[in-house]
């Protein structure tokens, strides 16, 4: 007798994704899809996707989607959530989108305690435009616009968004996760689920930063890229919970 032990999440559409080999976007999509399904909110949810590689997230996740201008997803999400408080709303943003051009929007949405969930995928580089330096590019990291490696006098230092936003009273829950192996992946899913659950309780803004790979623009193999997240990225961007109103943190 055969038994189904694993099935494609109903939160995902049955289509092929366009992401490069070894990119973590597909994994993050899958985790969101599973959480939407487990919380039974796929049919009610509205996602906001950014400008960048994940601009097509709406083609992959099986819920309604709105594509926002570069960096403006938190404002768009505010417009949806304020007019439709019953809709579970999440944004999906990259590091250039959220931490550079959209810095004002995410800071103010957090400050106001907007009751949506941000999924912030940080891969330390502009992916879709061809690997330019991002606000989260590490010092020494070579990109197409920091070809000798990022250096502080010229480029400044990378920004830690989970920590920055956790200083605000409007933030209800903020955690930085990764998906480079099974334990971190399971932790990431748990974090996303908690963020969306707290949103459904209407507590405040919830924020999950996911350290992610970009093998294409990092000039690494998928295996090397995952290893670099663990060995290097997570040193500057430590995994963990930075804000949790439930435990008074």
């Amino acid at each position: 007798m055969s038994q189904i032990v694993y099935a494609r999440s109903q939160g995902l559409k049955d289509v092929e994704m366009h992401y490069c080999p070894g990119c973590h976007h597909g994994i993050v999509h899958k985790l969101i899809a599973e959480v939407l399904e487990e919380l039974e909110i796929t049919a009610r949810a509205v996602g906001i996707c950014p400008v960048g590689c994940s601009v097509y997230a709406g083609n992959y996740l099986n819920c309604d989607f709105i594509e926002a201008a570069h960096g403006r997803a938190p404002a768009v999400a505010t417009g949806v959530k304020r007019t439709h408080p019953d809709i579970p709303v999440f944004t999906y943003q990259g590091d250039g989108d959220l931490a550079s051009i959209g810095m004002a929007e995410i800071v103010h949405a957090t400050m106001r305690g907007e009751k949506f969930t941000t999924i912030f995928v940080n891969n330390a580089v502009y992916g879709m435009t061809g690997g330019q330096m991002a606000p989260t590019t590490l010092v020494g990291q070579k990109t197409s616009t920091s070809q000798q490696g990022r250096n502080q006098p010229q480029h400044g230092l990378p920004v830690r968004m989970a920590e920055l936003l956790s200083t605000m009273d409007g933030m209800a829950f903020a955690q930085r996760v990764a998906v480079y192996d099974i334990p971190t992946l399971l932790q990431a899913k748990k974090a996303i689920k908690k963020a969306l659950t707290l949103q459904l309780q209407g507590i405040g803004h919830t924020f999950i930063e996911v350290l992610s790979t970009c093998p294409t623009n990092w000039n690494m193999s998928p295996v090397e890229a995952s290893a670099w997240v663990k060995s290097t990225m997570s040193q500057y961007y430590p995994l963990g919970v930075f804000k949790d109103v439930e435990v008074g943190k």
Partner: protein
Amino acid sequence: MQKTLWKGNEAIAEAAIRAGCRAYFGYPITPQNEIPEYMSWRMPEAGGVFLQAESEIAAINMVYGASAAGTRAMTSSSSPGISLKQEGISYLAGAELPAVIVNMMRGGPGLGTIQASQADYFQATRGAGHGDARMIVLAPGNVQEAVDLVQEAFDLADLYRMPVTLLADGMIGQMMEPIIFREMQGRTLPPKDWAARGRAQDGQTHFITSLRLDAPDNELFNLALQEKYKQIAQDEVRYENLGCEGADILIVAYGTTARICLSAIRLLKLEGIKAGLFRPISVWPYPYDALRELALQDCVKAVLTVEMSAGQMLEDVRLAVLGVRPTPFFGRMGGMVPQTQEIAQQVRLILKEAIR
């Protein structure tokens, strides 16, 4: 119905509530501040959402989100703020989302001044931010007309699924006039079955986007947009003709300027000069055909355009008249308002020239 005294900005805000607007997002800028101020207490009273955004950019994107979820939404600003909103306006056009934007124009360029101006005509009528997009642009001539056009602005936005701008000069926002809130009929509108508010609504997933990465696909979309604009140019032209038949000269003006021109026309009438006022109400689509027809009358010696700008609508007047009549221009800039006597004197000089 009793007339009541209203300030233009507040009247427009109240008219929006009465037109079913249930989401307002704005940012302070003079001379439109009474709109967000009025909305801040009135919108919650009407069961809608008011939010003061962190910037004009955020405000227009909140409008984008609210509209994408199917709510009647608006924002308002003045010239420098509208420049910031242009990104969002282009996305609204590209995603085919309805929205109403009020621009209480002030003198520019840059920070300029807070006094009334009409110098954003090019910005409003030549596109909708970047890309081959358009906005319907309605230009009220007084507070009553502004109020009446608000319902129409929301209906047009919903009907054609596109941004509609109410283009007024700061004078109309700041002026108090006795007005009536008429019972507006409103248009019959299609259901918003495209809205992204969860697929539970109709079993379909909805993806609101302006991204069409495949160029042939994007061209097809652009062709469809242009078809829509062609239809609007045919069906939604509005203007007022005050004594243009048999006139010696036509004066073309919109907004507050048109009203001052009307005073000049009355003055000239006492001198036996017959000047007609052609007042475009929709400045996109522009009433080219109607203006051309009137300009072609044998009696018309010239078509004078008067604006609070360096001559922006003038280009549309020239496109309408196509060189068959002289098209002189008189304008004041940077927040200065043309005076009745100045306009009358222009007309006298033009006619003297034409007779000689």
